[in-house]
């Protein structure tokens, strides 16, 4: 099995091979394939596989109960899988291995910190478990406290923290050992807008610094903002995968180009009919709405036609269809119920 996905941002093809063919191929920080997990009758994860390259942020977008947490639990080596294989930085991960776990920073969906310990004590505890050398741990804790904005509250017990502060510490613990792969399970659920924004910014920065990020969410906007590639997961299966662009095109969703026009749009509408990519044109007083396949490719042609027709353009707006509509198209239901 070979899965090829065009990655626009990095302008290269990511090729995912089955393990037998993947030997010597170290492009990806994470490679997983054929993951299955059933709880009694319920198949929570059904043949899930994907890969994440260095510096790439990968989103698992799906509603509650889709199987996101179950999937990343198997990837983090905390849940025994029924089938499948996980490789992180070239090392196999199961519940019995520990080698590869040093490459993973796992940030669980629930706040997994000791409430009766301070932030510093929580960080120290997990730092020891991550095997950070003693002389390195102290300075690293200070760094992380700085990053998550808790430097001045580091010696307070975490039970006294606000929800957002706890969330930030929850993430901070996953960053302690500077993992190659950071796994974030719905990190913004129940967080105030300000904390949420700071979390999203941190994730963006991490991606830029070269960390591979696996990000699960049921918020379409977060997946769109953060993720280079997104897998749409529902009922334990990945329904589609790719960049936002690819996903949108995959389901035949069109872009909308809104033109503000000066003077008569009549001639423009006539001329635009000759552009094959254009599916539909609606003209109104002072504006034209154009439904088109691949707005970015066609937009120069549209503007050219407008110029030839002598129509003045006062504004251009491109509205791309979002992942919400992709999800709706793929599963017949909304992301949030």
């Amino acid at each position: 099995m070979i899965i090829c996905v065009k990655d626009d941002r990095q302008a290269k093809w990511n090729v995912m091979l089955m393990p037998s063919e993947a030997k010597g191929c170290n492009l990806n920080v994470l490679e997983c394939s054929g993951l299955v997990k059933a709880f009694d009758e319920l198949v929570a994860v059904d043949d899930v596989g994907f890969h994440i390259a260095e510096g790439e942020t990968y989103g698992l977008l799906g509603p509650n109960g889709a199987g996101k947490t179950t999937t990343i639990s198997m990837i983090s080596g905390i849940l025994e899988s029924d089938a499948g294989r996980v490789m992180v930085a070239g090392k196999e991960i199961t519940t019995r291995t520990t080698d590869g776990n040093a490459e993973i920073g796992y940030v669980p969906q629930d706040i997994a910190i000791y409430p009766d310990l301070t932030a510093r004590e929580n960080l120290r505890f997990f730092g020891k478990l991550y095997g950070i050398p003693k002389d390195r741990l102290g300075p690293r804790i200070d760094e992380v406290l700085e990053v998550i904005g808790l430097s001045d509250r580091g010696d307070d017990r975490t039970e006294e923290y606000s929800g957002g502060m706890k969330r930030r510490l929850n993430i901070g613990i996953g960053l302690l050992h500077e993992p190659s792969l950071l796994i974030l399970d719905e990190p913004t659920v129940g967080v105030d807008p300000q904390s949420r924004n700071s979390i999203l910014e941190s994730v963006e920065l991490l991606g830029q610094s070269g960390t591979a990020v696996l990000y699960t969410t049921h918020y379409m906007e977060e997946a769109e903002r953060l993720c280079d590639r997104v897998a749409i997961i529902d009922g334990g299966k990945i329904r589609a995968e790719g960049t936002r662009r690819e996903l949108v095109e995959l389901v035949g969703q069109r872009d909308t180009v809104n033109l503000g026009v000066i003077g008569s749009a009549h001639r423009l509408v006539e001329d635009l009919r000759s552009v094959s990519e254009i599916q539909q044109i609606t003209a109104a007083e002072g504006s034209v709405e154009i439904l088109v396949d691949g707005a970015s490719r066609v937009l120069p042609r549209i503007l050219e036609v407008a110029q030839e027709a002598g129509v003045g353009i006062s504004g251009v707006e491109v509205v791309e269809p979002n992942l919400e509509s992709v999800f709706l198209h793929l599963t017949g239901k909304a992301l949030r119920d």
Partner: protein
Amino acid sequence: MKAWAITSTNIKRLVRDPSTIFFVFIFPMLLILVLGASFGGGFTPKVGVLVQSDGAFAQAFADGIAENDEFESLDYDDAAVLLADVERGVVQLGVIIPADYDDALVAGSTAAVEYIGRLDQSSVQYRASIEAVASDQSAVVRAARVVESEGLADFESAVAAAQLVASGPGGSEVIVSTAGEALFGDIGQFDLGAPSNLVLFVFLTSLAGSAALIQTRRLGVSRRMVSTPTSIGQILIGETGGRFAIAMIQGLFIMVGAAIAFDVKWGNLLGAGTLLVLIALIGAGAGMLMGAIFDNDEQAGSMGVFIGLGFAALGGAMFPLEIFPDTMVTVAHITPHAWAIDGFAELIRRGGTLSTIATEVAVLSGFAVVMMALGTWRLRAKLTH
């Protein structure tokens, strides 16, 4: 070592919680104090009576004890058997009326009755009752002597005279001497209650402590530990170590505290240490098992207290096994409590050593192996499924 990081965090969290400080350290000591002060209360004490004289006064003294409904009186004919039974707690006290008892009284000299008892608070109470019987007889003897000396024969005069003489000085008397002191010189007031409380509280804390483990699991901290490069084995050792360390800390605190505050003599240190390690291991294993089986920490906490107190009551950690009927004593030995208390009794009361408590140690080791195996097996499964 990573396991130690988990163990020490367990201890740190315990020490930080003021309510556990109270229940783990202060409460057991208070209970030893309270139970020590009232040990033996609430049931009819048995008194073993050995009459070595065939005189009428001696028999009257024995009858006086038998008629006193504060006691249940049992007849003995061998001093050694009586001593052993007091020691073992079959009877709570023994009274030996010596062969020269009547002669001494008739001769007008002091007649001594040997009293064998434990030197606890209730013994003082029993002794007062025996002395009351003795002083009744003493009054009669004085009255008789008055009757004799005055040459009066009628009963009413004798009583009147006796009442007169009873308040007066002089005359012979019955002295109750304590024979137990020499025999049980090492037994203090709290020596019997302290081991029971040690066993009760170490198990109780271990079982109730399963709540902390469930909390760690429910918070997702356990899963997070598994996600780090820490093997499940290390996590299990760390968590077991945490439960074990807490049990040991509490056990040592009770042992040392009781020795210092209440002058409890634990006997052979190697033997007592071995028993403590074993009950701490059993407690840790049982705590892990409960921590794995239950998913609700409050439920597990109250179940832990319920099971902990139930087993303590059944196993003789609340009421001495000596007052149990034989079948109940047999049933009691399904609990580790009974075996541990037997072991401590041997060390404290009979000067036992590690070799004389080999049976108790073997049985407790069996408990420890089974509880540890079950606990780690269930917890391992819970952590990764």
